[in-house]
């Protein structure tokens, strides 16, 4: 599998390079007069060790020690239809279909789009700009990357069970459901996309636009094949009153716990009751050389109540992220992000504490464009975690080289 994946990745790169006169391409490859357009992002990141697993992702890799290759393509079939897809390999160990969907534009005169398949996330702002070239820093916002101790397929029986796993979301298991060790889930997965149907509409001047979606998984656990009998409903509204200002609000709700785990906990037929519900608000403001972003997400999970001391539901997590970028000179910028992820208190037999260990991250860095599509980033992170058995304070430094076309 690994050999095949590596070969496929290299094949993709070789193909796009050959098309562009045996040099690395600097712009998307267009075939058939624009009917097929292929682009790519390649990034290599090296960073210091992460013994506290602050940067571990639900792709089972550290975001600061990562070789990532994305190849995206669109096949346009007239004014109304297009097929879009993206394959991704991380550390060249497996090639994954990240996105594959049909885009339908029923009326050319109206800005209404329907997308079917493995579609981009409706919820939030950051999830659609996770590409290294779009992220001014190297790390990701905690809400989209940091692994909580919750799993959809493995459930704690008591509050004590959950409290014992604080800060251990990178490798986790509970007593009900799947007993193998796996990673937990973030509030919103930036590394997997969900499967379903999505409709987007905008006013003529795009001052207001909105998107609704029905998909198989949840924000924390996007899926290709649903693992329970319920669908997720998500919506997002954007308001752009003036150029440079974007105000966004999002909501999503769907059954989170897998049918197998729910049945093991409370019997058959209850899996739709154990949901993830999330609300988000985001603001982006840019002007001249400055770009500011703010995003907050509140997520609630309802888990089965099995034994005493019972898990008081909902379990709530709140993330807040503030990010800024300023261009100092042509091709040179500085950026910083301050991020906090907190959890509500849970009462155990002997202790009351947040159900997972709160995490704070400060990251600052610079980016330098060696050429237009070759970017070097260096950043420094300072992570702190209030609880859990692993390392609680962790400074990390990383460098990333990003090439895109």
């Amino acid at each position, binding site marked *: 599998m690994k050999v095949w994946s590596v070969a496929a990745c290299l094949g993709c790169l070789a193909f796009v390079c050959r098309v562009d006169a045996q040099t690395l391409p600097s*712009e*998307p490859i*267009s075939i058939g*007069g*624009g009917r097929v*357009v*292929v*682009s790519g992002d390649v990034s290599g990141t090296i960073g210091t060790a992460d013994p506290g697993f602050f940067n571990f992702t639900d792709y089972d890799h550290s975001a600061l020690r990562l070789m990532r290759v994305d190849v*995206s*393509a*669109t096949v346009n079939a007239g004014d109304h239809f*297009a097929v*879009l*897809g*993206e394959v991704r390999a991380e550390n060249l160990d497996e090639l994954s279909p*990240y*996105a594959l969907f049909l*885009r339908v*534009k029923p009326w050319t005169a109206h*800005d209404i*789009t329907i*997308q079917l398949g493995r579609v*981009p996330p*409706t919820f939030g702002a950051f999830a*659609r*700009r*996770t*590409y290294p070239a779009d992220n001014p820093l190297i790390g990701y916002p905690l809400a989209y990357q940091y692994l909580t101790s919750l799993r959809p397929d493995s459930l704690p029986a008591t509050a004590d069970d959950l409290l014992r796993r604080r800060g251990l979301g990178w490798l986790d298991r509970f007593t009900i459901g799947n007993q193998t060790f796996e990673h937990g889930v973030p509030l919103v997965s930036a590394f997997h996309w969900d499967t379903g149907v*999505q409709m*987007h*509409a*905008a006013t003529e*001047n*795009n001052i207001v*636009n909105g*998107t609704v979606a029905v998909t198989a998984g949840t924000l924390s656990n996007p899926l290709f094949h649903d693992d329970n009998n319920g669908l997720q409903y998500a919506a*997002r509204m954007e308001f752009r009153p*003036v*150029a*440079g200002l974007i105000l966004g609000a999002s909501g999503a709700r769907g059954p989170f716990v897998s049918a197998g785990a729910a049945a093991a906990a409370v019997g058959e037929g209850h899996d739709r009751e154990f949901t993830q519900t999330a609300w988000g608000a985001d603001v982006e403001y*840019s*002007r*001249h*050389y400055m770009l500011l972003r703010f995003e907050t997400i509140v997520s609630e999970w309802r888990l089965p109540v099995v034994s005493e001391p019972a898990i008081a539901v909902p379990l709530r997590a709140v993330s807040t992220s503030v990010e800024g970028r300023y*261009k100092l*000179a*042509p*091709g040179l910028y500085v950026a910083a992000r301050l991020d906090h992820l907190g959890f509500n208190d849970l009462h155990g037999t002997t202790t009351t504490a947040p159900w997972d260990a709160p995490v704070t991250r400060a990251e600052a860095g610079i980016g330098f*464009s060696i*050429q*237009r599509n070759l970017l070097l980033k260096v950043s420094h992170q300072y992570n702190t975690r209030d609880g859990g058995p692993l390392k609680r304070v962790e400074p990390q430094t990383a460098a990333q080289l990003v090439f895109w076309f």
Partner: protein
Amino acid sequence: MILGCVALVSAVSFVCVPQGTQAARPGTIRGRVELRRPTSPMERRPGVADLGSPAPRDVPNLLRSVVYLESAPRGAFETEEGGHAIMDQRNETFVPHVLAITTGTTVDFPNSDRFYHNVFSLSKTRRFDLGRYAAGGSRAVRFDRPGIARVFCDIHSHMNAFILVFSHPFFGVTDDDGRYHIDDVPPGTYNVIAWHEGTSSDPKAASVPDGGIAELDFTIR
């Protein structure tokens, strides 16, 4: 390499033209540039992460070429201060796509779209970043070094344009049929080059008669 050649030749080369004739009248070099293989416009990157369809945009005019003297007459570099030129940003396209100017010219970059653009260039000829500004806003850049500046938008990666900066005034931009003319050329023999979308032709010699016309056609690609 190709981009740099304009800077080199136009900065250091000149040709001695006959000075003895008192009434030497300038002539014209004219002709046509044939493009064997039309260039395709730079496509948008596949918007896999976009929730909606991309809005229609204008397609840049890629038919224009620039023809210039590789070796300019003595005294050609003593040009007066450059003026103003405009490169508009309209419906996600730079207009014109190719702009030829002399050194000292200030280029205005108005934004005619209702959303932000961010014009920048990382070219050695002129490195600049104008930041984000909205409709009705404009920023200006003065070009003091000969060469080619590749211009992009930091927000819309498919937007691109060329600005060719010459240290002499002997150049012409073709029309949509490929026709060009370079006027007021002192009589003499010159090497002439045609340039199109980053590709230069081999130099061709043109002899400009006293007050006359030299015909010179090119084929590129």
